[in-house]
């Protein structure tokens, strides 16, 4: 995403009450925009609107006009697979085509700038999101195929999210006397997976490819790719086979990505990416939870308590919070969480906002979307949890195609 417009010269630090004009340039930016835009914000963007005019005789005439509209956001919808963001709201600036108060849904487009005003100013979380979205040095995305016999999940791991592009499922005959059936079944499965992979992920420029499976499936698949590449004399495919890394995973389900991202092969290529740090924190959290030493807690109420006690501070305190908690909540809750993040930062701890669209975020989601590693053990934090158990459930909602 790029800063544009008259204010593009202004330093990011100065972003206060004012507006920011942004130019999304790649699909990932839409995801950032989705995190940035929350209800009650004001968005000005290019729009295509159908305008119907009625003549004196009563005949109607409608046409599609290109115009700039300014709306107050009521809701956003992010299409993960297509990376499209739809922002709905009411028009607040009248022009010749629309009246105040009419509804419109803006489809934010790539290479078309939009301007955003925050109703309640830019808080620390929003500023950080904006900073992140403006980061230019993007690491390349990684394609991964998590497979087992008969199932393959083709996904794209970007810095901020994991996109499940396609799932391939084939029935492979089980062991019978005629084993040729089985072999041909495997070939069919590989063939289907390969064509789907080529179709759903662009290998035009070489990008790393991870093949993960239990047993030998991934290795066989890699061999199959190079076989096919040789047969078809397909340079791109040959390069792809060469780039492919075979990683062991314990199952072919998508959540095995967790193991894959930890594997040394992956860490070597992607150690600086945001998610690998987050994965490390998540691992530390679960290790501590295992030990049950009183230094790891999850769930909103307990974490809030711990933060208020100042337990998440200098010297190893980490607050992990899913960005989904900031997205759709009402303002008060959002403020509460922002205050939580600010408090931790003030205390000298680390506050990490995890992408709920990523593997580590998904794991955090399972824990209620918020967790903390404390600097010192606190016991019995969950004793009176019964009172406000509703809070902890907030994050445990969505599990669609995204990890």
């Amino acid at each position: 995403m790029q800063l544009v417009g008259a204010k593009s010269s202004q330093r990011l630090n100065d972003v206060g009450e004012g507006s920011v004009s942004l130019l999304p340039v790649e699909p990932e930016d839409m995801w950032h925009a989705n995190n940035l835009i929350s209800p009650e914000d004001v968005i000005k963007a290019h729009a295509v609107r159908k305008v119907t005019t009625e003549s004196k005789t009563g005949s109607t005439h409608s046409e599609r006009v290109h115009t700039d509209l300014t709306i107050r956001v009521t809701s956003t919808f992010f299409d993960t697979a297509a990376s499209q963001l739809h922002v709905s709201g009411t028009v607040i600036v009248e022009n010749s085509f629309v009246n105040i108060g009419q509804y419109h849904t803006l489809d934010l487009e790539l290479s078309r700038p939009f301007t955003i005003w925050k109703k309640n100013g830019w808080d620390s979380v929003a500023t950080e999101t904006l900073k992140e979205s403006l980061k230019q040095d993007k690491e390349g995305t990684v394609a991964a195929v998590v497979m087992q016999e008969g199932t393959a999940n083709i996904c794209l791991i970007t810095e901020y999210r994991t996109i499940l592009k396609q799932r391939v499922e084939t029935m492979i005959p089980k062991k019978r006397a005629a084993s040729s059936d089985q072999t041909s079944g495997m070939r069919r499965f590989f063939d289907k997976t390969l064509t789907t992979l080529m179709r759903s992920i662009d290998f035009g420029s070489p990008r790393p490819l991870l093949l993960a499976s239990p047993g030998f499936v991934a290795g066989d698949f890699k061999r199959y790719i190079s076989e096919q590449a040789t047969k078809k004399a397909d340079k791109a495919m040959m390069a792809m086979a060469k780039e492919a890394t075979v990683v062991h995973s314990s199952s072919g389900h998508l959540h095995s990505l967790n193991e894959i991202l930890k594997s040394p092969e992956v860490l070597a290529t992607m150690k600086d990416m945001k998610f690998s740090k987050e994965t490390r924190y998540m691992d530390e959290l679960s290790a501590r939870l295992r030990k049950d030493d009183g230094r790891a807690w999850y769930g909103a109420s307990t974490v809030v308590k711990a933060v208020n006690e100042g337990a998440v501070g200098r010297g190893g305190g980490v607050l992990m919070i899913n960005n989904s908690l900031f997205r759709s909540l009402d303002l008060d809750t959002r403020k509460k969480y922002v205050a939580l993040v600010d408090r931790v930062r003030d205390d000298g701890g680390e506050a990490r906002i995890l992408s709920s669209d990523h593997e580590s975020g998904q794991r955090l989601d399972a824990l209620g979307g918020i967790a903390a590693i404390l600097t010192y053990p606190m016991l019995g934090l969950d004793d009176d949890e019964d009172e406000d158990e509703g809070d902890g459930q907030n994050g445990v909602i969505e599990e669609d195609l995204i990890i």
Partner: protein
Amino acid sequence: MSRHQAYRNYDYENDLDEFDGEEAYGEEEDEEELSPEDKGTVFNITTTLQPPVKQSDTDPHSAQMEAGTIQVQDALGLQASKVTAAQIQEALWHYFYDVDKSVAYLVTKHIASPEPKAAKTAPVQKNKGEGESKAQFSSPTPHSILDLAKSSLEQILPSPYAYGGNTLAHTSRSVAGLYLGSLYGITDGQADLREVTPGSYQSSKHFSFADFFNDMPWGNIPKDRETTFIAPLYPRGGLLGGADSPKKPSKLRELALKRKQKAEEQKVGSTDQDVQGTTAQMSQLPSPPSKKPGLGTLLADRKRKVGDLGQVEIPPVTKSSPEPSVKTPLDEPALELAMPSAFAQTLVGSAPAAPKAIPKTSYQLPYMAFTSSVSEAFSGPSPDDVVLSAQAKASNKKLASSSSKKTAGHDVKMDQASEGVKALNVDDAPLPKSKNLDVLKEYKNSKAKKSVSFVVVGHVDAGKSTLMGRLLLDLNVVDQRTIDKYRKEAESMGKSSFALAWVLDQRVEERSRGVTIDIATNRFETETTSFTILDAPGHRDFIPNMIAGASQADFAVLVVDASTGAFEAGLKGQTREHALLLRSMGVSRIIVVVNKLDTVGWSQERFDEISQQVSGFLVATNFQLKNVSFVPVSGLRGDNMVHKSTDSAASWYTGDSLIQELEESQPLARAVDKPLRMTISEVFKTTQSPLSVAGRVDAGSLQMGDALLIQPSGEKAYVKSLEVDLEPVDWAVAGQSAIIHLTHIDPIHIRVGDIVCDLKQPVRCIDTFTIKALAFDVLMPMQVDVHRGRLHAAGQIVEIPAVLDKVKGTVLKKKPQVVKPGSIARVVVRLGNKMPLEAGQRIVLRSNGETIAAGLLE
């Protein structure tokens, strides 16, 4: 008067007669022999013939009746004396003065054994006089034609599909006739020709399905007691088309037919030879592009699958034309044989076989006689297909001969397609018959051997597969020759010691890597028991397969590698995990086989040490020692397996051999009276059935003809036949490993791991469930793999409502942050997809390649 009118008045009867004897089948020959003029005549007669034409002479019935009678008598020649005038007239009345049909009827009905020759030659004589045109053109003698016809028929007969037009004419006509013929009765003439040539049917044995039973003495059996002929499922050629109510064809069609005829003229000279040539080539034909290739092949494919279920009882019949089918009531005089409208036809189905076999005393409503079902209306190709193919043919003059081959193939394809369409309508095909047995009673009465299944588990490379290979070899289930063959192959791969394992490791991958990947099933019998072996993989990556095996087993054989270092490695590895899984899958009896003891010189110390350690951790995992026994063996050499060890160093062991231990095992109690449940562990095709599933019946019973429900797809299927232990049986009960051949279901609805269940008490598919789980590792809200038998899916622990007391089952702590290993907790799991699960099932939760919990579904 237009030329057309002239044709109308042409004495077509003679034309028809002339073909009586010589046309063995179909119109192809007749069209070949005819001059263009003649053909035009036939064409016009056949296509434009309408009842009024017949009656164009002013005085209708009585005069016609007389004329008809004479004609019939003529046609019958010498045989005429065998029938009375009254009979003839009755027949004529039935057939609406259609002389040829009447003759056919009379010949089959009243003249016990009609002499083909007589019927044939007589008209031919006539023909010589009148049909000069034929002579001009090509003048094959009637005999030569007959021979030709016969020979082609003989070629055709063996396969009903191979029958098809030998020439362009035939195929195009039959294709076109599929629909138009039935709608317009356009091929009357040809149809009649067939009917009046008894000789030809006899040479072809069965011409149309109904004709096949022609000479049956139906007598005066009332109509309602007559059998219902289910028309065979090939496309309706329209060759026998309706006799008396042709409708004027469309101009387009006329044009098409004329063009086609022209095309034939060009090649007519060579056709005679072609006929045989083409029939011979038919089988090698590349299938021509079908009109709807995707659908067509799909249907054809489907048809093949379903074919033998639905159509078994229908004898293979050469492609016969459909029964005189649709007669448009429009131009018909309000006369006796009023035929249904095309609409009625569509609704009710086509007409039954020519009504000749029904001696009617009174006339029924037309559709009362229709027996075939509605679906037949769609059994032919669509009108579009028909018209398109007719047009394609008509415009394809140049390629006449080659296209004749093609269309012949096309015909076959159509044939299959239309059968496929028929097969699609699954409710229409007969359901497998149920014997309505009281399975439980049968089961109690049966004196079968007890059947027991056991799973072989252990750490990777403990020698599980080799052990079982040896067992099967010593029990003569596999012969030495096979083993020798395997050994040779294995040697060439540098793994000669794997030869025995290859008995069970059949997959190419498994052999090349020397690792069992999937469960292998095999069976053997002793005097008292029939055993099913489930050879599980030991590698940690294939634990899901091992779980699948363990879920089907009554008891387990735990193989422990006694060689130095290997045992210790195994104890840390899968030996322990497998034992844990067995316990959580409800297996309580374990035979511990201490394998490879020969490598440590049959050391008793080693055996005792291993026994002690293993029993230690088995007790720790809640096995009772009385259910655990130890046998020292050498799997590779076979000591103490079937035969006692002959090695003097092993003489200290006096206990049972492995096979004795196996025989002592009792099957678990079978839930035979519960509703049916069976987890599908294999799906495959057999020659017997296009879709068969194998697995162990977990609960309940089933028998042939039962309707079943497949979950999670929720599709219904029927049991066509059953196999237990490779023997065809009528029923199967819980505990048996059965193969079910299914019908009435598409294979896409069935996957390995699905559950076959009772239709009335099906398993519900759920995505959130609670289990009471024993934690082997720390549990917290996390992502897990959920395993239940063959089934495994991704899921997530969403909530841990309580930790329970191990003994009392009371709640110790509500909503714990984590569950410690070894404690029992109530855990709520949500799955990504719905799975067929029900209370009481054993669930295993795994994460990151380790078993973290197992428990019962609540």
